[in-house]
């Protein structure tokens, strides 16, 4: 009986019709998935082709699918919040529920949507752009993905089991500490982020080594496609920023579970230190999700303006400068903490300085279009919409950087408007642009242009209608994270909600487009869909698992553009040699499944289960250490057959 009481009162989240609905749909979807897989006898296929794969392309696709699912969840959260703020009197959500929703919205969008989406694109594209057959450490790459996937699962589990975290995605202490916030909810946040953070760090190392060591012969650093450059810089930021998050999360976990006093009110702990550590990681994190988007836009604008990128070197150096500055601006997130004139002045100025390299990039994109011949395909539309929207986000960012004025903007909808203008116009547009741009390479057919444009216009107009009014809400004194509003903020909130609905329609059309294109789009017969310039377009579509039959020698920037001029391909029959490829492995999946068990134990403070899970993780590491599997060779004959089949349509 006691056990059942526990299940009903503490374990499962009860009392919310919305959550019951979610539970039912989770159960139904799970049953449906199990049924479909069993009915079509696809379990073996799932295990062999996906769960154990170390192929960067498949891992990239899994990242993107997971990110889209998370975008859906975060988007539903956003719609629920907009509904509540439009009908504040209706008690659609109570304060507690609203708090949980904005917390999960923020966390999911940053950690489980933006980053995996971009990492998915990097995974698929970067090895192709540099002429490599995989990333440097394919096993580690699989491990990264599964750590993200299980981390996301842990975090999302809180929704139905134990309760969602409700301390905001920033989780400021002491509010998020054990005393003021008891129970497993906040632990889900800490452990979920920790587990997926491990994977992100590994991804960072992986890409640095890949880009440094696996480039095609002749591809000097200054000949790298700009998206690869942005990945490289992003990876550096990841490697040097994520350990800070790891430590911060660990410290709060130890505080909550083992009774230490880092961020507590008792024992002379220092709650502000959490904010400090969080933003030491958090600010570089912003650039982790924005630089790859910059890279995507650069590729697309250059391709569709049919011109070389304007100021390639300046583009690279500006990213380097942004990466450096990103580590010395974090205090602007808490100017109002009262650290005094010197601190606030210093961080005001460093923050504003970031506008300079960013401005350089904006003008270089405009320069790329100058004397170009611009086509307006969907990827280009997303990239073009990015420029004005991001400029609005950027200049308001400069306004926020002015500490004295920030005292009035801080914690208001002005801030909310700013970072959505930056993160949606930058990251989300970037993801959509990148996905539609590389979609034919990934799946062998384009996304439907007409639907793509419909979705684009709905989303972009909706985005502006939703977030532009929020600047004014900030001036009108509306604080963020409030579940109810004053009457004088009503009109603007209703406007914003209309915008949110338009965005939702845009997203729905986007997802429908995936289905529609799968059914009806014309299959690609040619690897070079958009008349591209970088090496990923040199392979056939679909890309063979070894990527390149022969790796071309690179003679300058824009490798593929040159190859087309010289009539060369990545298949030079006489030069084909056996290709060495890594073997698939189930260890990453199993290891992270054990990690999942360990995490679940830790979240509920069931230390026995946590230790058992941890032993499983360690055992997997030992197994891996003794694994001397050296991969396999693809025979010349197989390569020739594959290439012949793939290239039939081309001639």
């Amino acid at each position, binding site marked *: 009986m006691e056990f059942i009481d526990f299940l009903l009162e503490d374990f499962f989240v009860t009392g919310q019709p919305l959550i019951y609905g979610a539970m039912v749909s989770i159960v139904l979807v799970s049953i449906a998935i199990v049924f479909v897989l069993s009915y079509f006898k696809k379990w073996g296929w799932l295990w062999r082709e996906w769960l154990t794969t170390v192929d960067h392309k498949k891992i990239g696709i899994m990242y993107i699918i997971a990110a889209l699912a998370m975008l859906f969840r975060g988007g539903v959260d956003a719609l629920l919040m907009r509904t509540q703020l439009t009908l504040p009197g209706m008690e659609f959500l109570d*304060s507690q529920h609203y*708090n949980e929703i904005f917390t999960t919205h923020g966390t999911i969008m940053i950690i489980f949507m933006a980053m995996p989406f971009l990492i998915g694109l990097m995974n698929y594209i970067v090895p192709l752009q540099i002429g490599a057959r995989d990333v440097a450490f394919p096993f580690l790459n699989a491990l990264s993905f599964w750590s993200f996937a299980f981390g996301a699962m842990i975090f999302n589990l809180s929704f139905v089991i134990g309760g969602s975290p*409700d301390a905001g995605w920033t989780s400021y202490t*002491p*509010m998020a500490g054990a*005393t*003021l916030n008891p129970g497993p909810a906040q632990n889900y946040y800490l452990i979920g982020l920790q587990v997926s953070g491990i994977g992100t760090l590994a991804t960072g190392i992986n890409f640095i080594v890949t880009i440094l060591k696996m480039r095609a012969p002749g591809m000097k650093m200054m000949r790298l496609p700009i998206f690869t450059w942005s990945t490289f810089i992003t990876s550096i930021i990841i490697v040097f920023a994520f350990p800070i998050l790891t430590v911060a999360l660990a410290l709060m976990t130890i505080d909550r579970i083992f009774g230490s006093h880092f961020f507590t*009110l008792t024992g*002379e702990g220092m*709650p*502000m230190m959490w904010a400090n550590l969080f933003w030491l990681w958090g600010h570089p994190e912003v650039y982790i999700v924005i630089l790859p988007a910059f890279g995507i836009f650069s590729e697309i604008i250059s391709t569709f*303006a*049919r011109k070389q*990128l*304007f*100021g390639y*070197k300046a583009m690279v150096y500006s990213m380097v400068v942004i990466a450096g500055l990103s580590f010395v601006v974090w205090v602007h997130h808490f100017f*109002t*903490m009262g650290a*005094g*004139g010197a601190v606030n*002045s210093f961080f*005001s*100025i460093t923050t*504003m300085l970031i506008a300079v390299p960013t*401005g*350089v990039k*904006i*003008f270089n994109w*405009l*320069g790329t*279009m100058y004397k*170009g*011949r*611009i086509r*307006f395909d969907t990827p280009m539309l997303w990239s*073009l919409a990015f*420029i*004005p929207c991001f400029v609005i986000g950027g*200049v308001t960012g400069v306004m926020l950087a002015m*500490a*004295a*004025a920030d*005292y*009035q903007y801080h*914690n*208001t909808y002005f801030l909310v408007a700013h970072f959505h203008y930056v993160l949606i116009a930058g990251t989300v547009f970037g993801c959509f642009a990148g996905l539609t741009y590389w979609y034919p390479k990934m799946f062998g057919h384009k996304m439907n242009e007409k639907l793509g444009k419909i979705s684009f216009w709905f989303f972009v107009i909706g985005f502006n*209608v939703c977030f*532009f*009014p929020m600047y*004014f809400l900030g*001036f*009108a*004194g509306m*604080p963020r994270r409030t579940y*109810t509003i004053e009457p*004088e903020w009503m*009109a*603007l909130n209703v*406007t914003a909600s209309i915008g949110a609905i338009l965005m939702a329609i845009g997203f729905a059309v986007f997802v429908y487009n995936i289905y529609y294109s799968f059914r009806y789009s014309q299959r690609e017969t040619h690897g070079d869909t958009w008349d591209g310039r970088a090496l990923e377009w040199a392979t056939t579509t679909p890309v063979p698992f070894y990527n390149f039959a022969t790796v071309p020698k690179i003679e300058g920037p824009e490798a593929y553009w040159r190859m087309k001029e010289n009539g060369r391909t990545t298949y030079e029959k006489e030069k084909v040699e056996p290709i060495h490829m890594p073997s698939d492995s189930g260890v990453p999946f199993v290891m992270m499944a054990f990690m999942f068990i360990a995490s679940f134990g830790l979240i509920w403070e069931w230390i026995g289960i946590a230790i058992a899970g941890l032993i499983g993780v360690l055992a997997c590491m030992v197994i891996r250490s003794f694994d001397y599997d050296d991969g396999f060779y693809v025979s010349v004959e197989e390569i020739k057959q594959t290439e012949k089949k793939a290239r039939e349509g081309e001639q």
Partner: protein
Amino acid sequence: MKNIYLRVKLWAALPALSLLLLVSGCGELTVLDPKGPVGESQKDLIIFSIILMLIIVAVVFIAFTYMIVKYRDRPGRDEKDYDPDHHGNTTLEIVWTVIPLIIVTALSIPTVITIYELEEAPEASSDKEPLVVYATTADWKWFFSYPEENIETVNYLHIPTDRAIEFRLSSADSMASLWIPALGGQKYNMAGMENTLYLQADEEGTYEGRNSNYNGSGFAEHTFEVHAENEEDFESWVEKVKNTAPELTQEEYDSLLAPGLEEELEFSSTHLDYVDHGTNEGRDYLIERHKDAFEEPLHLKGGRGAGDE
């Protein structure tokens, strides 16, 4: 592509359109209509930055529109206009690095000056000593202690006009942020430390004040009213509180600290006699007394004792 012009126009019109909507839709932009010197200097800084930023936005938008209109792929375009090998221009790149640097400098100077200005009491009332008010928060209410007057109020505040108020900010539990948008910017309240915030009202009136830093389920109701009145009215209000309000006993104060919402109250003594949450000794005062109260979910409905159910 033929209606690209129209689309671009529509696009450019969007912000303007929503601006119009705003002006008609919403009453006042409190931050841009401040009632005291602190808010005033912040407003000046904001307006200055908005003007500079609008210039930048205008330049980029015009250049952007020019590019996508002039260089779009359309039938009958002059072939000479297309230069696929054009890939940079050092002079231009230097220009658009240096100009932003100048703009940043132009923004930095007034910013730094204002930052330091706001660390001190406003100059406008330098002839008078600032009125010291200890503003302490506990989930989810505000305590205002006037040590010189030896009175304390809960969830509302009386201040004299034309005199600087020196807020001593601290918290008994979670981090909060005292913000009275009509008077000026905010600062954090934190347990175990003390922040100083200077504000001043030049116009009499009632202003909204609130905690703007999210701190849990009572956050939306964590507000207070500021009554700014002339020196005389203020004095007589102080007298009235002194004479009519009860003393704040430690027992009473301890029970007020329990998490929950509270109505407006006043007392003829301050809690500073028992504890100053801004000091190292006072930082865990509330936790020691109300640790268990956070274990149960609170159903807040407002008013006294609502948190106790």
